[in-house]
């Protein structure tokens, strides 16, 4: 109890005298804020990207690709097979008895970013009418859906924000043809919002394709046994060489390469910065302790113990670190959260637009890093403060 009281007393003295030495305190705060700011904002990129892909697809739906293909772009599903696959008993049907399956064509079209000229691989998806019934989360929010048999497209909200020429009413030239943008759609911020959609038949003739890339369908029975039954019926049929995946499984896989890369970059840079900031914190805490040598020695001469001195210096360092962490996290949140970005996803070779996400978990992680740096920077100065012989410290006057 006495030790606790002593700790509180010394800490109060330390904190109250902080304004007298704004320089060193500020240095600790800024150093740590820099580390946390960089860490949180880089990880927010990875988090945003992962979130976009993770929120794509529903477990009750499947995507079918050619066996061995890991992405739609490299897959191919011939027309006749697509028609057969759609009628499999494992696939749900709508009220009119039509299968809830959409064979889809996937090509890349070149579009410049807004205000730039060089082309980007923007995914262009040709869909069958059932596509909208299958993906209930998709809604046309501006304009209207495309009509069948006509060269009209609708664009995802994020694609429209990133790339030039994707606003309602504008015309864009793709292969052989002009297309009119008639609507914009939203689908809960998922990966489809980076795409341009059109009628599969029209797209197929315009892009001179003979087959589809994939088939997306709703499961009649979304349970594991229903999924397994469909998978098995496809596997057993010698006419098919098709793999069946639940949508979330497929889309999660598309995020691996890029999010790993961003994470490695973020953690490496932050780790180095943290080491640098720790040296800075050490420096400042040493000088803070040195400046108060006499006070500390006086306290110890009148009966304060060594441990409370150590603890109080640690508390000071941790307090400063906490402030630094909070400042860095807040800066990352204000500056980055929601900022939209688009990049080439190496797994699919196409552009994905996403928004940076500064999540509470990231902020907590940033604060944890701050505290670790603060603790590392405060420990040795604290021990030194308690170790200097009282008589020697007092003589320094």
């Amino acid at each position, binding site marked *: 109890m006495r030790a606790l009281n002593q700790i509180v007393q010394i800490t109060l003295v330390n904190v109250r005298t902080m304004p007298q030495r704004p*320089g*060193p305190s*500020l*240095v600790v705060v*800024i*150093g740590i804020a*820099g*580390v946390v*700011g*960089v860490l949180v904002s*880089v990880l927010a990129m990875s988090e945003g990207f992962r979130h976009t892909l993770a929120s794509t697809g529903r477990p009750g739906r499947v995507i079918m690709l050619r*066996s*061995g*293909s*890991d*992405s739609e*772009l*490299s*897959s*191919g599903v011939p027309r006749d097979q697509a028609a057969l696959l759609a009628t499999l008993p494992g696939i749900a049907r709508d009220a009119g008895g039509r299968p809830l399956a959409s064979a889809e064509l996937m*090509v*890349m*079209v*070149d579009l410049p970013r807004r205000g*730039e000229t*060089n*082309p*980007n*691989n923007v995914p262009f998806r040709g869909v069958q009418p059932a596509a909208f019934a299958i993906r209930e989360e998709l809604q046309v929010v501006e304009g209207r859906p495309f009509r069948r048999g006509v060269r009209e497209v609708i664009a995802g909200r994020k694609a429209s924000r990133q790339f030039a020429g994707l606003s309602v009413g504008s015309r864009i030239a*793709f*292969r*052989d043809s002009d297309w009119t943008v008639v609507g914009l759609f939203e689908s809960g911020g998922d990966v489809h919002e980076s795409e341009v959609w059109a009628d599969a038949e029209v797209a197929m003739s315009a*892009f*001179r394709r003979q087959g589809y890339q994939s088939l997306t369908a709703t499961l009649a029975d979304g349970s594991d046994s229903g999924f397994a039954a469909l998978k098995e019926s496809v596997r057993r049929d010698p006419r098919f*060489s098709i793999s069946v995946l639940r949508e979330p499984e497929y889309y999660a896989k598309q995020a691996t390469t890029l999010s790993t890369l961003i994470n490695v*970059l973020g953690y*490496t*840079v932050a780790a*180095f*910065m943290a*080491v*640098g*900031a720790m*040296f*800075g914190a*050490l*420096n*400042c805490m*040493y*000088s803070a302790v040195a400046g108060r040598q006499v006070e500390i020695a006086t306290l110890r001469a009148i009966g304060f113990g060594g441990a409370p001195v150590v603890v109080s210096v640690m508390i000071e360092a941790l307090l400063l670190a906490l402030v630094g962490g909070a400042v860095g996290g807040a800066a990352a949140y204000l500056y980055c959260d929601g900022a939209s*970005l*688009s*990049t*080439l996803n*190496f*797994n699919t*070779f196409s*552009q994905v637009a996403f928004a940076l996400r500064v999540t509470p978990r990231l902020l907590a992680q940033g604060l944890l890093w701050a505290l670790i740096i603060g603790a590392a920077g405060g420990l040795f100065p604290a021990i030194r403060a308690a170790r200097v012989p009282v008589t020697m410290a007092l003589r320094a006057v």
Partner: protein
Amino acid sequence: MRYLPLLWAGLFRKKTRTILTLLSVIVAFLLLGLLHAVKVAFESGAESADAKRLLTTARYSIIEPLPIAHLRPIERVAGVVGVAYADWFGAKYQNESNAFPVFAVDPTRYLDMYPEFTIPREQREAFVKTRTGAVAGRRLVDRFGWTLGQKLPISSEIHPKADGDMNWAFDLVGILDADDPAQRGNTDVVLINVAYFDEARQTGKGKTGWYIERIADPARARAISVEIDRLFVNSPDETKTQPEKEFAVGFAKQIGDMGALVTRILAAVFFTILILTGNAMAQSVRERIPELAILKTLGFSDGKVTALVLAEAGLLLLLGGGLGMVIAAALLPVLNGATGGRFPPLFVSADTWLLATAVAVTLALAVGLPPALRARRLKIVDALAGR
């Protein structure tokens, strides 16, 4: 030079403080060396581009194939001295998609087009003669432990063989390398013989992915590009031709502005270091005011005292910066080995050294000037009296 011991003594007056400051400067420059190397590697496609090479792709999307029949007309364009072509195989190796790129090429045409790739003469001849032959980059060969003469089992995600089988096998007959470290990343590729590939594949016969043209005069790159594209205007397979560098820059831009990201991170790092070092310097000068006054009493001019303090800051940053960069240069080869050749090789280039020097000098001025000016304005009487 005469004052070096004095500088040194001033700098290490408070050992702990200087060493800690020095360490944080070292870390900052180490980070600069590493991150800038990433940026350089990222932009190396554009840097190493040959001004005498053009690239022709399908006009509307680089993934659309072009007919092999385009070859002859392109060859006849005035100013074009060589044409090669390549097709994207879509490799999957040991169940990993795109573990490395595989291009189906005409061996002679392709290797002639890229003289920066080195390959022993007899291996090159073997590649030309072996229909099922393949050559691979040195880094890939090391990474997967391949040996010359072995079968490479690679499946394709795009091209089935005539019997529908997606699993292909090629004979490794040669190893590609490059003398220039900046080019070495471009050899992370497996080349296969198009003669066999085109005959054995089920679909897409008679098509290729893109053309590469060598031109005699880089100044005419634009004109020749236009001329090539004009050949195929209004045909079902229109083309888009551009200088190699433009293509590389465009492709890098697809990933987004990596350069800007690196710059922002480094700005945050150095802003922090500036505050840190600046504080340490100011403190050090503050403590030494009586000493500086004594120097002035001994006859050191105002200018000399200013220069001394400034030189101290310069010494600190150059020492820290130099050490940091040397560590970065020593660390990168280790890093290259550890990533197993998955990323392009990283190295500290002359550009990075230049940048580091400029940053060190700027920081030294920013950190050193305020205390130096303070030392200059010092009045001997006041300073000695502790006022």
